């Protein structure tokens, strides 16, 4: 194959049944983390087509050093000289002449890359890169490059050239890529530094986190990058190198908001503050101890990608028809019997197979390595030799929601006493003892989430807007980010999803609106077969990296918003749902998932820094594609991220679970179970669990193995009837209402907490710029009252408009005619803040009621408007 060797583990083209027979039972040794290794994360920044540009960096460095009359040997210079050179380069970054500027930028990039000409090994390059990056950051290079980025974003000439071109190529984004690369390397080195517990650069790291978590100039860096993405998607800047922008956005967010550890710590911190018990279970840890289930045998039927791939129906508003309801009208008793029969009728061989989730093949290998997989599979004795410590019990402690207790008590009361006592879960009078015991058990497993507490507080504030003020909103990186992206959040979500769609492996080239390949395609198309193979791999790799970055960004934001305030999370997730995120993710999984997970779109020798260190082999000869890993880290990472996003969006939301059903997610998810990784399977099983009750008896009957796996692996909610669906909440006619109620709550939350600020920002941009310097503390302090005031004012205007229109029909009251001048003077011309204390001093019920009404009215108005 023209000198190409492919390290193949999975035979990607052939059917899996034969080729993978042996691998079928090998668990993937994949460990989920916030990001891949530092080396890989750096390597993924560059595409293989950028290879030639590395030499330009050295050239720039050598030229600069010649200008300074120094030898181009960085390591031979003293630290003082290093600093002096860096300071001179920064000075050069601010000159008018573009070539001079970019020369300095390239030199700095070469320094950030670790002066690879002078080193012999990867380790040496990394440690030099780390040293340089810290020096660069201390000297203010990051700040200087952000200004350079501002300049380059607004560079109208390059944008115009790119818009007119038919095929935008690498050449159109040369300068931008240099700038983004420097920013990315600094950020990534800082991220790696964050993982070292005793870092000598602790102070710099803290300064860095602080810097990127706050607006630089008047804009948060994350918002600037999101803005770039939106501009790219709107077509006005087709030359923006999206991969680098997305990677930078991801890393910036990760470093500023924090990864899994921070999330865990914050969650428990917030829970303690609310008086809730600390959570000790860690999904990552628990799933690590789990064993992957073997894929359901029936999955083989729809194993290969469906031959006639059904195009997804574009469902804008979910039409819920009766037919989507559970198909069985059998009563529960009968149903249960049927299921048991069905279970017995299952293939005998299959049954031990799904208990195998408790097996340890490692054990098996030690005991008798001669056993081949199939034999091993049939030996129940090995299953018996499992160490009992593996999973003596179910992996998760069961949970109960407050709602479940109410429901259980209500049903019991109606059954035994014949009346209901709404909102009372204390009195057990008249209930038989077993029921009381049941209630006690439910209460013991009661789990109150942060979201519950936050929702409750919101309800209270809504009910008593005057007495129950807003607590001071704590300013943390998440809050700053939310406030900054709130005005344009819908556009940002749409843009991110558009890119995700364009990068999905199943999507055809037909998505012409955006071309995410601009930063990988070279100006000249490849001439030889090797070159085009190389380009093919490069393109696929490029797409995979984009998917990785987008999925990581979305998941990270969702997770952080969720613990910060549940309505921030709901706002983002609602916009994701409106932008068709659910079908998009399903479409993503509707591919040959094993191919994707095992893909080999990597040429190790072309990766940075291998591609520049040491003797370079002739590129045409003996190019090894793929590494020795049996799976692609980034692809499993993306898959898990996307599954988690899907879970986050649909959890406890019947209307969205229905979308999973409408878009026929079950067979797609079932195929995904073939990937033998416990954590990934766990998220798939969760998704299947929530929709099981809608899938009908037939599905359950043929998929008992999945049902068992769900039982064994997913957390139980006591009393939850997930498989058979007698849930009162699941009535389809409530779905629309459910989404609308949620929307109202979210809007009310946003209006109250942020609307006053935003409207001020629109009206008085200058003032807000000034007050921005005070970190917006003032504006948050008076959030509640301002909000109401604003709404009142809008209401006034609204009323007066009505008055003009209905002049004839409407008689003004006498009081109004007599006093309107005073009112105008006090309320409109002077626009003094209303002295609410005045009202409280002399309780005037009518007035308060009026205010309340107008608040309701104006929220309604704003929604419809």
């Amino acid at each position, binding site marked *: 194959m023209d000198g190409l060797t492919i390290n193949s583990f999975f035979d990607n083209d052939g059917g899996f049944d034969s080729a993978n027979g042996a691998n079928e039972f090998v668990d993937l040794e994949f460990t989920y983390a916030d990001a891949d290794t530092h080396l890989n994360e750096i390597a993924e920044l560059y595409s293989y087509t950028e290879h030639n540009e590395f030499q330009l960096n050295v050239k720039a460095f050598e030229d600069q050093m010649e200008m300074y009359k120094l030898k181009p040997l960085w390591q031979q210079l003293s630290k003082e000289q290093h600093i002096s050179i860096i300071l001179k380069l920064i000075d050069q970054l601010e000159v008018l002449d573009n070539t001079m500027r970019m020369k300095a930028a390239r030199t700095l990039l070469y320094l950030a890359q670790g002066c690879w000409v002078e080193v012999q090994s990867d380790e040496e390059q990394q440690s030099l890169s780390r040293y340089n990056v810290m020096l660069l950051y*201390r000297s203010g290079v990051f700040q200087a490059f952000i200004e350079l980025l501002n300049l380059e974003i607004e560079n109208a000439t390059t944008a115009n050239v790119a818009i007119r071109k038919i095929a935008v190529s690498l050449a159109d984004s040369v300068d931008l890529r240099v700038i983004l690369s420097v920013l990315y390397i600094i950020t990534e080195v800082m991220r790696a530094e964050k993982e070292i517990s005793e870092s000598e650069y602790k102070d710099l790291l803290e300064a860095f986190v602080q810097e990127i978590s706050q607006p630089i100039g008047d804009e948060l860096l994350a918002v600037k990058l999101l803005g770039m993405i939106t501009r790219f998607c709107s077509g006005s800047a087709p030359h923006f190198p999206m991969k680098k922008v997305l990677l930078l956005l991801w890393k910036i967010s990760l470093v500023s908001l924090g990864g899994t550890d921070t999330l865990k710590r914050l969650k428990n911190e917030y829970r303690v503050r609310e008086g809730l018990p600390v959570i000790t279970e860690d999904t990552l840890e628990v799933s690590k101890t789990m064993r992957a289930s073997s894929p359901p045998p029936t999955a083989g039927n729809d194993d290969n990608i469906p031959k006639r791939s059904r195009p997804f129906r574009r469902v804008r508003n979910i039409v819920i028809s009766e037919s989507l309801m559970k198909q069985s009208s059998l009563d529960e008793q009968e149903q249960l019997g049927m299921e048991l029969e069905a279970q017995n009728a299952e293939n005998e061989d299959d049954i031990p197979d799904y208990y195998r989730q408790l097996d340890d093949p490692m054990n098996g290998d030690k005991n008798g390595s001669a056993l081949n997989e199939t034999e091993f599979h049939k030996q129940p004795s090995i299953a018996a030799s499992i160490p009992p410590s593996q999973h003596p019990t179910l992996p998760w402690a069961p949970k109960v929601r407050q709602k479940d207790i109410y429901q259980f008590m209500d049903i019991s009361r109606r059954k035994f006493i014949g009346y209901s006592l709404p909102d009372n879960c204390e009195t057990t009078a008249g209930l038989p003892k077993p029921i009381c015991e049941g209630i006690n058990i439910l209460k013991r497993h009661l789990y109150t989430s942060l979201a519950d507490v936050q929702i409750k507080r919101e309800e209270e504030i809504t009910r008593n807007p005057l007495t129950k003020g807003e607590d001071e909103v704590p300013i943390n990186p998440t809050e700053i980010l939310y406030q900054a992206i709130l005005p344009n959040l819908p556009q940002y979500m749409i843009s991110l999803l558009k890119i995700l769609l364009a990068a999905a492996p199943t999507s055809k080239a037909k998505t012409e609106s955006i071309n995410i390949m601009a930063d990988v395609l070279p100006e000249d198309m490849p001439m030889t077969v090797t070159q085009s193979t190389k380009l093919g791999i490069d393109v696929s790799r490029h797409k995979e990296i984009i998917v990785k970055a987008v999925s990581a960004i979305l998941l990270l934001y969702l997770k952080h918003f969720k613990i910060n305030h549940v309505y921030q999370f709901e706002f983002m997730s609602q916009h994701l749902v409106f932008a068709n995120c659910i079908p998009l993710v399903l479409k993503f999984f509707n591919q040959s998932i094993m191919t994707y997970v095992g893909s080999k779109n990597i040429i190790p020798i072309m990766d940075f820094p291998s591609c520049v260190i040491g003797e370079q082999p002739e590129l045409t000869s003996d190019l090894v594609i793929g590494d020795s890993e049996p799976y692609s880290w980034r692809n499993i990472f993306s898959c898990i991220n996307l599954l988690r996003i899907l879970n986050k969006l649909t959890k406890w939301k019947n209307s969205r679970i229905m979308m999973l059903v409408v878009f026929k997610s079950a067979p797609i998810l079932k195929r995904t179970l073939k990937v033998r990784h416990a954590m990934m399977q766990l998220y798939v099983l969760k998704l299947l669990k929530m929709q099981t009750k809608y899938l009908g008896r037939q599905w359950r009957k043929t998929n008992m193995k999945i049902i068992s796996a769900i039982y064994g692996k997913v957390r139980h909610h006591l009393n939850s009837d997930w498989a058979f669906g007698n849930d009162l909440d699941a009535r389809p006619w409530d779905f629309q209402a459910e989404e609308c109620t949620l929307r109202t709550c979210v809007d009310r939350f946003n209006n109250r907490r942020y609307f006053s600020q935003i409207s001020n920002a629109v009206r008085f941009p200058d003032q807000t710029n000034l007050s921005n310097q005070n970190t917006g503390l003032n504006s948050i302090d008076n959030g509640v009252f301002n909000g109401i005031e604003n709404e009142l004012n809008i209401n006034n205007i609204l009323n007066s408009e009505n008055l003009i229109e209905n002049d004839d029909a409407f008689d003004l009251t006498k009081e109004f005619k007599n006093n309107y001048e005073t009112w105008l003077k006090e309320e409109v011309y002077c626009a003094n803040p209303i002295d609410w204390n005045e009202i409280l001093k002399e309780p005037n019920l009518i007035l308060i009621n009026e205010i309340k009404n107008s608040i309701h009215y104006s929220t309604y108005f704003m929604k419809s408007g």
Partner: protein
Amino acid sequence: MVMEAQSQQTQQILRRNRPGTSAKEFCQWPDENFEEMDSTLVVQQYIQQLIRKDPSNVEKLLTMPDGQDEGVWKYEHLRQFCMELNGLAVKLQTQCFPATCTQMTATEQWIFLCAAHKTPKECPAIDYTRHTLDGAACLLNSNKYFPSRVSIKESSVLKLGSVCRRVYRIFSHAYFHHRRIFNEFEEQTFLCLRFTHFVTKYNLMSKDNLIVPISDAGEIPGESEA
């Protein structure tokens, strides 16, 4: 230097320039020992006192009192430089016009962009001067980066370098294009000399970029040198 006997008297002295103070009387109050200063703006008071006494005594000016926080020390010095630089800017306004000096340049090779805007722009020299000084004042007075003048975060101290870099270009422009004004100003204030020593001492700028010649003896370079 310490005047024990006068300490009683010092108590009554209010160090204020009341409205209507004549130019002769301006700031004419006796010196105070650094240790005895008890306002919240000690460092500024101390620096200004030293400058009033002898602006050319760079060595003394830049010697940090014991136990002083270095971040604050650097911050207060830079603040003082920017304040005094406004004097130079006022003088430049009489000679440096957007029509004559269309670009911010020192030697021909280096034309600088004005970083005070969201996207750096090519401003005339006098506008660059104004914008940069305004920008510096904004940054140094911003609540976000410098909420306190007693202790300053590391991340904010890192911002001082870029201010120095930009502010220095005002000196170099004045020196190369408005030498008379520069010399007049420098004779009175020794500002460029002080600034040069300051950025060198704290490694805020590269020596090679300090293009305005300064002799170590602290003398003002004459026209003949250039």
